[in-house]
């Protein structure tokens, strides 16, 4: 009985997470559309791309591992995450008045892209095609997660180093919110583990607790998106006046 209730509660939690993800994606796209400088626009669009990839990854979680879409979603998330961090580092470099390159990023970014895509392609193919062969499977998975993990860790370190150099407070907030989102994602993947040895009800409770971190991660990503550029609210009862024509445009809030 309790187990059924816990299972039923998991659904709305996941739906809430996906709704927040979708709204954050929409916000990132609308902010990106109106930014003028390419480097800032790219970051907004890659943020949207990352959110879309996370939604796909969540959806692919219900697929069996033998389905080609399942490993493909992992390849996609690695590449999109890398491009997203790369675009953020370029913004960090732009907002640093001395335009310093964090951890030699300008030199390594292009080789990293090539090597990352190659390793993911080879590792993914081995893991998918040779799942019957244990050794090749392990080599494939190691290539896959090893390359992805190494490059993402290096790029995340470069982003944090750069963010510490920039005086831009919105950029720092962006990185901080991103950090919270990543922590929530890690908790989502790990919190259920201590509950695993216990009874089914306790396991379901653990699953529910871990699922609560999905909307939390989505919310922090939403806050990160809203830090792409400060967004104000139009004051009510304001008349927009053109001096030349003397015409006035009155907001609808005014009778």
């Amino acid at each position, binding site marked *: 009985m309790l187990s059924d209730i816990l299972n039923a509660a998991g659904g709305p939690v996941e739906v809430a997470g996906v709704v927040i993800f979708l709204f954050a994606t*929409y*916000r990132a796209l*609308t*902010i990106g559309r*109106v*930014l*003028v*400088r*390419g*480097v*800032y*626009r790219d970051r907004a669009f890659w943020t949207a791309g990352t959110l879309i990839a996370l939604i796909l990854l969540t959806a692919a979680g219900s697929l069996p591992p033998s389905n080609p879409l399942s490993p493909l979603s992992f390849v996609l998330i690695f590449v999109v995450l890398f491009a997203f961090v790369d675009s953020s580092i370029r*913004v960090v470099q*732009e*907002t640093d*008045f*001395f*335009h310093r390159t964090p951890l030699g990023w300008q030199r390594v970014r292009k080789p990293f892209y090539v090597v990352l895509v190659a390793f993911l392609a080879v590792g993914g193919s081995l893991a998918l095609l040779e799942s019957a062969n244990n050794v090749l499977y392990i080599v494939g998975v190691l290539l896959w997660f090893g390359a992805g993990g190494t490059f993402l860790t290096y790029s995340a370190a470069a982003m944090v180093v750069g963010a510490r150099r920039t*005086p*831009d*407070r*919105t*950029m720092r907030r962006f990185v901080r919110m991103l950090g919270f989102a990543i922590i929530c994602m890690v908790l989502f993947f790990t919190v259920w583990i201590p509950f695993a040895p216990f009874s089914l009800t306790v396991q379901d409770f653990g699953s529910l607790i871990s699922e609560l971190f999905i909307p939390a991660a989505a919310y922090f990503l939403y806050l990160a998106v809203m830090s792409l*550029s*400060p*967004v*104000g*609210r*139009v004051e009510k009862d*304001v*008349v*927009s*006046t*053109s*001096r*030349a*024509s003397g*015409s006035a*445009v009155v*907001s*609808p*809030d005014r009778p």
Partner: protein
Amino acid sequence: MVSTGVPSLDNLLGTDGYSDRSAILVVGPQGIGKEALGYWFVRSGLIQGDYCLYATHRPVSDVLRDMKGVGIPGDRIPDWIASSGSPTRLDLRDSTAISFNIKDAAHRNKGRRVRIATDVLSPLLVLNPLESMYGYWSQLLSDLKQQDSVLFALAEDGMHPPNVLTTMEQLFDGVIEMRLYEEGLSITPLFRVRKMLGLPPLHGYFRFSVSSTGMEVTAHVK
């Protein structure tokens, strides 16, 4: 009057541009398009035969690429004081040299109208105490106004505590704020003219768009 370089903005201000011998400050977050307003201001001066100087902490190549991106052809370019790619190098650690070089360039063109656009206000405010920067900019603007010149400065609003920009705004004759605004589900880029020399308070929001074909400003209808 000195044209803003954006006909629809000149029209909205109703004065055909900024006042003579004035200093204009544009405040806004990164990437919103403040620079575009500066580029069109410089471009307009180059067409009219004014002496134009662009003082920037960025490399010249970066600024030229940006200019191209907002539809400004590269047939006419201003004089530069930049971090690289210019005969006179700009070093943010040497604020005295920056001020000297700007004033020197203006002085050498005394017989002409001078337009100066710069993005060094925010870096200098971050790297130096507010008190010294207040005096520094006060002196620089006062010296430039001795001759026929207009200074156009950009400030990043995410980089300073609010009191810093409020203090600096007092030194400028015109202050324009550019920002993204949330209206229901949409995000709209708008600007406000917070003050402008020679104009009564200009209330309300104005919508702007920047594209490769130019910049357009219209009264904002909600």
